[in-house]
């Protein structure tokens, strides 16, 4: 439809567009420009070509941060998406009496990650933490550990907190998706003698495959952009064992005042996130084509 006055649509779009361009789109482009300069945030801009990018891809800390975040993402796919799928399977296996659990498991999603991190910092506390306390109480005192201060356990410890927060989130997503499946389909499976577990794996999971794929995409891209939990729990330590791209980026830009170099790292990260999205679209498209010809 044409607007009554030709300029109405532009007037409607302008407030959103102006704010968005000013605070997001412009800065995206400026970050791209910064990445080709040496700049400390105050002084002169020195053009350096691709030097910042070369430095980024050969920076051992930056490279290690990608490995750490990859491990973290792999763990969270199990602890968030996997656990969420399990919980969704449980709460959809019964027609009634599951509301309490659905509400309870979603609680952590509501809380600021910083608050969650401070609480879990105490849970992992070596002196009075919940975990060491529980281990002592059941006679496994020899297993107590400085969970966040040990290079072997720190990354896993942070991943567990992430799982604790987001398993309920993915449960809610899968729960909604499973409830969209026409009830006749699971009824039919049940009449054919399928057990609840078989119905779940053979009927429900295949039918929500799309949603599971989106969930994995969310876990991958979201995990890659993590910051809050890591910053509060370990801030990259111990000995860099939990340094992820964003914690390192914040140190480079805001502690070392290396704006140009940080911008190049930010661009590499952005390209990585966009590439993940592109891979997802490609996989999706291929699956659709195969599904169409089969």
């Amino acid at each position, binding site marked *: *439809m*044409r*607007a*009554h*006055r030709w300029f*109405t*649509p532009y007037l*409607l*779009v302008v*407030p*959103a567009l102006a*704010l*968005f361009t000013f*605070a*997001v789109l412009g*800065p*995206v482009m400026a*970050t791209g420009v910064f990445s080709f300069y040496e700049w400390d945030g105050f002084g002169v801009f020195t053009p350096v070509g691709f030097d910042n990018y070369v430095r980024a891809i050969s920076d051992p800390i930056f490279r290690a941060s990608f490995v750490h975040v990859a491990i973290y993402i792999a763990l969270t796919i199990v602890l968030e998406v996997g656990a969420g799928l399990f919980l969704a399977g*449980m*709460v959809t296996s019964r027609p009634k009496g*599951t509301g309490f659990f*659905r*509400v*309870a498991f*979603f*609680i952590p999603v*509501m*809380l*600021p*990650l*910083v*608050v969650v991190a*401070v*609480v*879990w910092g105490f*849970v992992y506390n070596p002196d*009075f933490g919940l975990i*060491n*306390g529980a281990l002592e109480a059941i006679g496994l005192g020899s297993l107590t550990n400085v969970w966040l201060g040990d290079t072997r356990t720190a990354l896993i410890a942070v991943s567990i907190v992430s799982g*604790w927060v987001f398993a309920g*989130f993915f449960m*809610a*997503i899968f729960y*909604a998706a499973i409830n969209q499946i026409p009830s006749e389909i699971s009824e039919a499976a049940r009449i054919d003698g399928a057990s*609840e577990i078989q119905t779940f794996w053979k009927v429900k999971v295949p039918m929500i495959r799309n949603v599971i794929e989106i969930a994995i995409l969310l876990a991958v891209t979201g995990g890659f*952009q993590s*910051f*809050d939990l890591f910053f*509060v729990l370990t801030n990259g330590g111990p000995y860099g064992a939990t340094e992820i*791209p964003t914690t390192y*980026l*914040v140190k480079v*830009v805001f502690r070392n005042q290396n*704006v140009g170099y*940080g*911008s190049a790292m*930010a661009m590499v*990260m952005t390209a990585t*996130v*966009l590439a993940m999205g592109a891979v997802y679209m490609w996989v999706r498209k291929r699956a659709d084509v195969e599904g169409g010809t089969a």
Partner: protein
Amino acid sequence: MKRLIGSRAVFFTVMGVLAAIYTLPLMWMVMSSFKTNSEIFSSPLSLPTSIDFSTWVDAWVVGNLGRYVFNSLFVTSSSVLVILVFSALAAYAFSVFDFNGKGILFAMFALGLLMPIQSYFIAQNSLFELLSIKGHRWTLIVPYAAMGIPLAIYLLKVYLDGVPRQLFDAARIDGASDMRMFRVLVLPMLRPGLATVAVFSILATWNEFLLALLYVTNDAYKTIPTGLLAFSSRYVTDYQLLFSALTIVTLPMIAIYVIFHRQVIAGITDGSLK
């Protein structure tokens, strides 16, 4: 019948144990807020000997928690209001009208859906520093509103696209002006969509941390995430006080969530699946 009873018992046992383990960290936090520092150290798992709310009051007063809560309420409500108004107007234009440049304008917002915060926060910080936007009570409203707009426009446009076009045609034939059409037709139709966007935006702004950390260093203007973090580094060893602060900040959020859980869960799942 027997199998049903069996599976029911198994279900409630497994889920009950899981829920207990799941909520343990939060219950432990609340319990510890009633214990003295030496009790916390000597027997971390014990129940408190008495329930005394005076440390909660202490934490609230000493930590100036009221100030952080107020700042969070102010920043969140303002940001969400801006997001709702700006996005509803833009979604109306994108869904209902044909105009030159529509495709490219919409693509710009779609780009915003894909861009991670890492792609712009460095230059955004420089820009805000240059224009002295940093360090005010209202500072965070600017990036929060801007960041929320793309998803809000997208969701609201999807809602409006579901409205039969004949309704708009009929309103036009009745002589409704562009703005009148927005008030009497678009806004009422958008109500469920606006609720979803509100839930989603409230949570995102209420919990945002990275920009709050970088842009607001004056304690008077800190929001709950950064305020609590400052609190926890100020009273590093006063565990009872810290547990009390965490408890009084989290319990109201959980209470509000439990009351509105249906809308909250629906809003967040709709928003994330786009």
